[in-house]
């Protein structure tokens, strides 16, 4: 059959299968290849019809949204990086700051102390003059002198320290007088002022810890140490280092967590105020991993998993039975 004629027959057939066409039938009987060809055309014909579904989703409009979100993240990053450059005044010491709301204060040039603090709901990353990089979780602060050779910081909150190797030890003092001396290591330190414990979890290297009472401890990779502010005890605890650093991947590992601690973590992470209004708060234990991006989603998750009820009004959240 002539090629063009075949085309007419096939199109007619696709448009109306019931319409009889002896010529097409004959062509189909000729060879299996012909039948395959027709079935391929049929698939194209039918699938092309389904493409109209796409039209209800507007890619251009959606792109504006996605682009806007990505750009605003970039601008915030740039703005704070620029601010950091401005305050450091020295190209060599780069201060990279990624937090959303971040307060940088510098005590005037005389003693050159730099203080970086993160507000609730934000985080940042700081590179110190010696090359050490500290990721600060929400509600944390880090203070250091900006002169060469000195490796000493004052710290509160939670941070992940990636300490540059050097001959001199790197010293971290917490606001409570707890002291860590390290060489080149990577570890997580949780030392919020209003927490009852200070916790250090080592990922790599070696850490020496001493308490104000001169108790000492060495940490090996994978080990976690805890200092109890009430009974002044310094001891190893069974915990998973990966869980301690989960905050850097936006995860909160609950692990049998109680309401009070969870509320505090959420307050820091999302910059909210949580009021616990439960008859028996001790009855609630939370297990699992929270990975939600908004406080609304977190509350919803907790509601579904534990039956806890909540109301959100702006930054205020009330938990009820």
């Amino acid at each position, binding site marked *: 059959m002539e090629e063009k004629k075949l085309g007419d027959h096939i*199109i007619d057939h696709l448009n109306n299968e019931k319409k009889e066409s002896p010529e097409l039938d004959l062509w189909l009987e000729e060879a299996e290849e012909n039948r395959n060809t027709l079935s391929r055309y049929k698939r194209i014909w039918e*699938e*092309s*019809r389904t*493409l109209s579904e796409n039209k209800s989703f507007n890619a251009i409009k*959606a792109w504006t949204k996605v682009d806007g979100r990505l750009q605003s993240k970039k601008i915030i990053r740039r703005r704070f990086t620029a601010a950091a450059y401005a305050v450091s005044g020295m190209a060599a010491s780069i201060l990279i700051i990624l937090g959303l709301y971040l307060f940088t204060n510098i005590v005037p040039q005389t003693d050159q102390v730099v203080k970086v603090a993160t507000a609730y709901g934000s985080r940042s990353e700081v590179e110190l003059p010696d090359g050490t990089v500290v990721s600060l979780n929400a509600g944390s602060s880090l203070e250091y002198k900006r002169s060469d050779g000195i490796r000493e910081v004052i710290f509160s909150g939670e941070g992940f320290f990636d300490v540059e190797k050097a001959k001199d030890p790197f010293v971290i003092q917490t606001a409570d007088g707890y002291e860590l001396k390290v060489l080149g290591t990577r570890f997580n330190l949780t030392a919020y002022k209003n927490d009852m414990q200070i916790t250090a979890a080592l990922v790599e290297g070696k850490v020496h810890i001493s308490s104000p009472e001169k108790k000492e401890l060495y940490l090996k990779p994978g080990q976690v140490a805890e200092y109890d502010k009430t009974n002044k005890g310094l001891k190893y605890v069974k915990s998973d280092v990966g869980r301690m650093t989960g905050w850097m991947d936006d995860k909160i590992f609950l692990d049998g967590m109680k309401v009070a601690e969870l509320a505090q973590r959420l307050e820091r992470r999302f910059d909210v105020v949580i009021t616990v209004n439960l008859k028996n708060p001790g009855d609630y234990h939370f297990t699992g*991993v929270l990975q939600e991006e908004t406080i609304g989603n977190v509350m919803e*998750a907790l509601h*579904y998993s534990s039956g806890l009820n909540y109301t959100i009004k702006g930054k205020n959240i009330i938990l009820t039975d």
Partner: protein
Amino acid sequence: MKVSDATLINGIRLGEYSLFNELFMRYYSRLCAFVYDITNDKSSAEDIVQELFIRIWERRSNIDIQESVSGFLFRAARNAALNHIRGEKSRRLVQLDIPQEEVSIEPDRIEKEEFRVMLEQCMNALPERCQLVFKMHRIEGLKQKEISEKLNISIKTIKNQIWKAMKYLRSCLEVQEDA
């Protein structure tokens, strides 16, 4: 010359924002329609797909695609959609590694979606006139007679254009499928 999916991904890995935009345009609507079939909710389907693209851009340097790019995208979209559905009940609270096959989706569904993506790409490569006629007929669902009146061309010409389109699409798809 149209850039291949693999080239797009390689460029995106290196931070080429314009190629990211191209990938988005190429797949957004298709992925939304696909996710919509799972979630049955239009606005959540769009949210899921937008989130997916934002994640792709933010983690661009770590993208590791072993399969075809479209296979990767549809699989990722399906997983996100399933997580969303399960999330309605338990959110993402329970565990880290959620088995991905709880909700059954016909197994050849992703293959089908990949075919549609290729088909759409081939269709967009058709000569202008031919493309217009074919789209009016298949996508907008106009009858040959209606197209003839609208464009003021004969039914014979329309049939020719449609056949031309079909032949092109068939060979274009064969090339793509082999790639």
